[in-house]
């Protein structure tokens, strides 16, 4: 088991490295740089001054050399400074990461806490009115883009509950209730797609498992229905659900980015978008690598959780 973990962790290293090269390359493919982004092509900008700035920021070096500086900085823990604000990127990320992770975590919890019971219920009441309703809701959840949902949610919450995006983000540790009230609606918008997917996946998986011999055996042994459902059926139906949640939580980071912009939340996604606008290369690279790393780590975690859920997988690896 330990060897499997170590092997998986080692496999993640070249993946992350490859990703950093890809991100670095893509960032430098973007037309313009920080000087043209800050001046927007205005006639007021002085060309020779822009050239001097490029030199001062190290943008005159070759792309491989710039990459070398970036990647050695990453591994030595020196993330560098933002071109635009002069702030340490570690400080910027230190402020943004907890916000994004909180929203992603909250969204995942919402998706699992609501989606899974709904899926089980739908499977147990197959073809009933509630099943039909759940399936339709699931289809809607999969089909609605979260930026559109966010716009609707903004309209509805401001009109009916007087809730609007916070002017100033409150951290969980300084005021948990205020923080949760700020994060709930954005997290709900992020979670909607995943919630629908978890619900549909749980339903399908449960339906399959409920017809398995060991469930019939459990019932024949006289086990209470609650035990049959939770211990025998649900646990065995979790493997595909975990796969979906694991991979989709990574994808949630994309959704979080859009939602952060709409709700004006100063998280990693919002930081990334604005860094792209201003061609703040070091900041783009670090935020993008962070988001990619989250994705890789989650996939890794999913692989490892399989082993815990299914002893057969443990034995085969």
């Amino acid at each position: 088991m330990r060897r499997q973990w170590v092997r998986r962790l080692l496999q993640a290293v070249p993946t992350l490295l490859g990703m950093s090269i890809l991100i670095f390359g893509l960032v430098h493919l973007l037309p313009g740089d920080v000087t043209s982004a800050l001046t927007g092509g205005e006639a007021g900008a002085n060309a020779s001054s822009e050239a001097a700035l490029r030199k001062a920021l190290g943008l005159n070096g070759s792309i491989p050399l710039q990459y070398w500086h970036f990647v050695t900085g990453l591994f030595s823990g020196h993330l560098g400074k933002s071109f635009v604000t002069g702030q340490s990127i570690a400080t910027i990320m230190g402020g943004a990461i907890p916000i994004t992770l909180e929203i992603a975590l909250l969204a995942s919890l919402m998706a699992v806490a609501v989606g899974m019971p709904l899926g089980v219920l739908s499977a147990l009441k197959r073809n009933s009115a509630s099943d039909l309703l759940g399936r339709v809701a699931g289809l809607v959840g999969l089909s609605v883009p979260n930026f559109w949902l966010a716009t609707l949610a903004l309209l509805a919450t401001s009109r009916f509950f007087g809730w609007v995006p916070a002017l100033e983000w409150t951290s969980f540790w300084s005021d948990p209730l205020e923080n949760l009230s700020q994060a709930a609606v954005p997290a709900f918008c992020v979670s909607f797609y995943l919630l629908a997917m978890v619900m549909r996946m749980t339903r399908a998986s449960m339906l399959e498992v409920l017809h398995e011999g060991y469930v019939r055996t459990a019932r024949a042994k006289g086990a209470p229905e609650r035990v049959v459902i939770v211990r025998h059926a649900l646990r065995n139906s979790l493997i595909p659900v975990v796969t979906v949640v694991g991979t989709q939580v990574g994808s949630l980071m994309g959704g979080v980015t859009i939602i952060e912009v709409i709700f004006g939340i100063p998280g990693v996604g919002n930081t990334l978008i604005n860094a792209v606008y201003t061609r703040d290369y070091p900041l783009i690279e670090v935020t993008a690598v962070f988001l990619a790393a989250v994705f890789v780590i989650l996939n890794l975690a999913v692989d490892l959780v399989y082993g815990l859920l299914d002893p057969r997988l443990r034995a085969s690896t």
Partner: protein
Amino acid sequence: MAAAPPNIAPIGVSPTATWEITNLVYESLVRWDRNMSVQPALAESWDIPDNKTYIFHLRQGVTFHSGKAFDATDVQYSFGLQKSPPPPGTVTSYYPKIASIDVVDKYTVRFNMASPDATFLGYCAWLAYSPIIPNGIYDRANMQISADGTGPFKVTQYVANSHVALERNRSYWRSGYPYLDSITMKVLADEQARFSALTSGAIDGATFSADIAGAASKSTDLVVLSGTTAAYNEMSFKLGGGKPWDDVRVRQAVNHAVNRQEILDKVFGGKGQYTSKIPPNYGNWPVSQDDLKNKYETYDLDTAKKLMSAAGFASGFKVTLQAIATPTQYVQVSEVIKEQLKKINIDVTVQPLEVGTFAKNYQSGNFEWGSTGRGMRGDPSGFFADLDPAGSLYQHIYKGGYENQKLTDLLAQGLQLTDASQRKQLYDQVQDIVLTEWPTLPLVDAVKYQVVRKRVHDMYVSIDATERGLPEVWVS
């Protein structure tokens, strides 16, 4: 705020979002009032003994937000830094022709100009590039995320991509101002989020599109403010490539085939004005709306067709019109123009581009036609900077396709002429040439909408698209 200020650096070329903050925090030697008339600010008065010397008598008893007393060394330091801004600042090409700055005494500064420069007072009054900061501050603080000015508000918190918290400067030299104790400038890029926040009372005002402003006008709790800004729409031609539009008659034909009122109606809800290179409401400099509508920018399809025939392009040609993709108005304007130019057989392909790509293409002359926007200038000469043969934009965009020695001479004279009435006549001539030969095609200046809650009084839409009104705003 619809866009996040990337930083709040006072020195160097910055986007408008940064100015929205720095305009409230910093001041220069002089300032504009609502009508763009130059008023004293950190200088109480000034003398111009000859056309190469400006002597400013500074206001005494003024302090920066940090408590440091303001004096002549701060002016010398600030203008020195404006000439060579620290990264990521770049110097503006509008920097005046200052040869040296003498500190005559603690409250007197003399600017010695290398040559007469009529743009100097406008450069100062605009404030975008001319803020006064404490002597040596850039050595002591990261001015990209902190601030220390003499303006009506001081920055108490800057959170990138989120908000800037401002507090009233209780030592402000303008007695009684500002009225507001504090302001939070919140970044909400999504228009619906801004409108929800406004209607629920979470914010007191924001900028909106014509559609949302229309909806807001039905609310009894909201007041819709409107006005044109210097950010007008323009269509640029890449000249000198041997293309049909190198011929002045083709450009004149395009001008007459473009129906500006239709652009205003279809894209901007009918609200806006025709514009010259100098936008409407920019002091007394622009061409009147009557002249624009009836003389220069008349929609006249017959004349347009005749001009195309005379130029040998009766059967038209194909052209690609690059447009800034976001905000969408540039693409929308381009689509209307595309339809309009079909009538003179010009087949326009609209190519929306991300603003960075557009800017790069524009600066390097890598385009055929471009649908773009202009912005504020400190002096009318600034609107013609791209037509100056000495400038890099001219080299990339106009060289080899457009040259008018009389225009070049007039523009050079305009930079030196200090007499206001003579300058006015000169820029009338300049505009007449540009609006006849159309090296570039000014289109329309759309109305900008700001919606505020009813309790907000005395706010107005400033021509530079920033929140210049806030120091005089009060709430009931």
